[in-house]
């Protein structure tokens, strides 16, 4: 500081700095020791914090990302490959006509508060979800159920109003997990389930901590603790991984950071699949989008691979209909409307639209697939003479204006629910307003068909109908950008349900 004897303020400053330096080094010592974790714990980063922890009382995918399969289990569950597996129901019988399901429950299951899980709890859980004042976000999953009866302690009879082949699949959703009547009302802040991990604490805004439940009925997990930390900012997520604060990030929000992580020997980068069909939805109620030629022209105008490369850094599979490419019943229909600007212009001319004579609004919600993808789609449409007016919106506004208000021409959104092709049978109620009796007939026969090959054929027909009708611009299947410590084993590569099942996770060595 001063060249000669330091003045009093300067001395005060020096001592402040010295005190600060000592403080920092003491704290740093504490922080370093905390980083050396035993290899039986996992700290996983997630983008979004759940608003609460009850999967039966909210749509937020972030709830399932923490508690599904870890804390809560259903009668059935959806496995890493998307198939339905037995869970709390060891097996089930289906009546001849497909309307009565008899679930045989496991006898060794307890809730985390120590009470036994019985058919009464199962009946209560389903009844609660179906109730008149139920606030279950997926009440539709249970719409076909007429009655639920506990025959004895471990047998549950579910009667349907009509055959519903996908009932076991529906019951594997997070919205259908089993809860106990005593704890149902407090599950939002202190979840009590039957899973391999029980809830320890929730530092709101920062993390949820879980620990292994010693009396779990199934195979005990290798981890003793699992912590989920919530880091919405992509830069902060990257820093937390690089600093060693996290062992894994379930789905990195910034695909641009993946090459750097991939080059780092400490990490494994795995690009997996999700249930997210990303589409350029078109409002079929509005002219000229009610004209199939205009919709086909829009589909032909878009270079799907260019959207994937430009918006998603090359991660994502182009799709030609509303179906996940990893599903066994998937049919590749990208060739129905390939990238062909000349054909697009011809179709527009046929529909009587002059180049430059059409301008459409394009509502873009916040995720980068929409905001970045929207810019590219707009450029593609401009090439065939369709103008766009881009309107960026928040989720709240998107839900209000686009989804419910139907006040839009075009929008880009990813439909992340598993196996959700049925939304095209919802007619004018649904936001893009597609109505096709032939499609609805296919969906109806699907409900009544149990035979797998026959179901696959029907799913194929449904996909083809949507592609040929050019209902929406089908863009690509959203990828899952998993990053984790190279020594970690057993994390899910794909996400057939929005979940981070850490039951099978362990450390190598």
């Amino acid at each position, binding site marked *: 500081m001063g060249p000669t004897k330091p003045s*009093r303020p300067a001395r005060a400053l020096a001592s402040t700095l010295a005190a600060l330096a000592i403080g920092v080094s003491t704290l740093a010592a504490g922080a370093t020791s905390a980083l050396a974790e035993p290899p039986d714990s996992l700290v996983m980063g997630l983008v979004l914090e759940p608003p609460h922890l009850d999967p039966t009382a909210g749509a937020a995918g972030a709830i399932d990302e923490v508690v599904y399969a870890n804390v809560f289990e259903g009668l059935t569950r959806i496995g890493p490959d998307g198939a339905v597996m037995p869970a709390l129901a060891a097996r089930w019988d289906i009546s001849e006509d497909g309307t009565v399901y008899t679930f045989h429950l496991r006898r060794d299951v307890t809730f985390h508060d120590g009470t036994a899980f019985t058919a009464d709890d199962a009946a209560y859980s389903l009844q609660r979800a179906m109730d008149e004042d139920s606030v279950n976000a*997926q009440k539709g999953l249970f719409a076909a159920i007429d009655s639920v009866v506990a025959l004895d302690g471990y047998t549950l009879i579910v009667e349907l109003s009509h055959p519903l082949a996908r009932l076991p699949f529906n019951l594997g959703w997070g919205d259908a997990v089993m809860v106990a009547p005593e704890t149902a009302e407090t599950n939002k802040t202190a979840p009590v389930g039957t899973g391999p991990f029980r809830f320890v604490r929730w530092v709101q*805004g920062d993390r949820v901590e879980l620990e292994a439940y010693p009396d779990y009925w199934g195979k005990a997990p290798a981890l003793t603790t699992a912590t989920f930390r919530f880091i919405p*900012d992509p830069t902060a997520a990257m820093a937390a991984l690089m600093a060693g604060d996290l062992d894994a990030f379930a789905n990195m929000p910034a695909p641009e950071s993946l090459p750097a992580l991939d080059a780092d020997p400490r990490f494994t980068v795995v690009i997996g699949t999700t249930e997210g069909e990303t589409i350029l939805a078109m409002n079929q109620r509005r002219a000229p989008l009610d004209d199939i030629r205009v919709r086909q022209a829009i589909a032909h105008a878009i270079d799907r691979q260019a959207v994937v490369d430009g918006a998603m850094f090359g991660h994502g599979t182009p799709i030609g209909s509303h179906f996940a490419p990893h599903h066994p019943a998937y049919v590749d229909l990208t060739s129905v409307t390939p990238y062909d600007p000349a054909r697009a212009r011809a179709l527009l001319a046929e529909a009587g639209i002059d180049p430059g004579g059409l301008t459409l609004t394009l509502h873009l919600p916040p995720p980068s697939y929409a905001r970045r993808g929207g810019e590219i789609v707009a450029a593609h449409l401009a090439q065939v003479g369709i103008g766009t007016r881009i309107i960026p919106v928040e989720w709240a506004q998107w839900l209000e204006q686009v989804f419910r208000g139907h006040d839009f021409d075009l929008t880009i959104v990813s439909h992340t629910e598993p196996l959700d092709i049925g939304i095209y049978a919802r007619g004018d109620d649904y936001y893009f307003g597609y109505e096709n009796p032939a499609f609805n007939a296919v969906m109806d026969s699907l409900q009544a068909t149990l035979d797998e090959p026959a179901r696959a054929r029907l799913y194929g027909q449904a996909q083809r109908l949507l592609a040929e009708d050019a209902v929406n611009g089908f863009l690509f299947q959203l990828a899952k950008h998993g990053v984790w410590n190279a020594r970690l084993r057993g994390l899910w590569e794909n996400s057939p349900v929005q979940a981070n099942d850490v039951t099978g996770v362990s450390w190598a060595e």
Partner: protein
Amino acid sequence: MAWFLARRAVALVLTLWAASLVVFVVLEVLPGDPALLILGVGAREDTLAALRESMGLDQPAWARYLNWVGGLLTGHMANSLTYDVPVPALLGPRLAVSGPLALLALTLAVALALPLGVLAAARRGRATDVTVMGVSQLGVAVPNFWLGLLLVLVFAVGLRWLPSGGFPGWEAGLGPALAALILPALALALPQAAILARVTRSAVLEVLGEDYMRTARAKGLSHAEALWHHGLRNAMIPLVTIMGLQFSFLLAGTIIIETVFTLPGIGRLMFQAIGQRDLVVVRDLVVLLAATVGVVNFLVDVSYALLDPRLRHGRAGVADE
């Protein structure tokens, strides 16, 4: 003095009432249905209606306004729409992060700025002065979130001394909790310190030219002693004004810094609540922040009176006496 304080107190209450009205109206106009946001695109109309009724959203606007203000006054605040817990229970742990963070940042800023500013003034025109002013110019120009990222890069990613973000909670112990707050506090404090150092320097320079300083030197006090005993106190009034203003900036800064460092504080809660249309939390928070700024300004006014006896005795404006 009493009259002055009473007038200030009335102004504070009126400001808060206006703030409550503005925030309520703005949130009414803002598009977005909280029920739809909570239940998502798969929800059915009857489920949405059931949830809206349970949240009291089916009542007319005026009734909801009166309920809300009544609740604020009697301490019966409504539950957060997204988290479904009473707002005070939600705010408590958040305040326990933002409060210490703001305090730590302010302390750091003052601890750095005052000595540096005084030093620069005392050595006006010399190398020390030029260096301090140069660095502080840089400090004023650097945005705090960028500084935050830089600090993370150096101290968390590079040196691994401190965590890159997050907050373990006070129950994890004083050490880990403070370790989580140091970097964000520095990121907030350094730009503030830069501004404060420049203001300190000019305030002290002004004081140095006053007659009473020459008198003090003539009495035999050293340069430093004269500055310490007679200069600083007189330089405090502009400084306190700036510190009061900076406190509001500090609150605003926490919104960005808490996002950069993933701290579960008031700023990030506000940010999330707006995105999730948690109207209950947003309006309570706005009133809380308005009240905080109002109270701080009130305290600044009071401190003028303490620092300057002329104001205390109601003879303000007769500066040359």
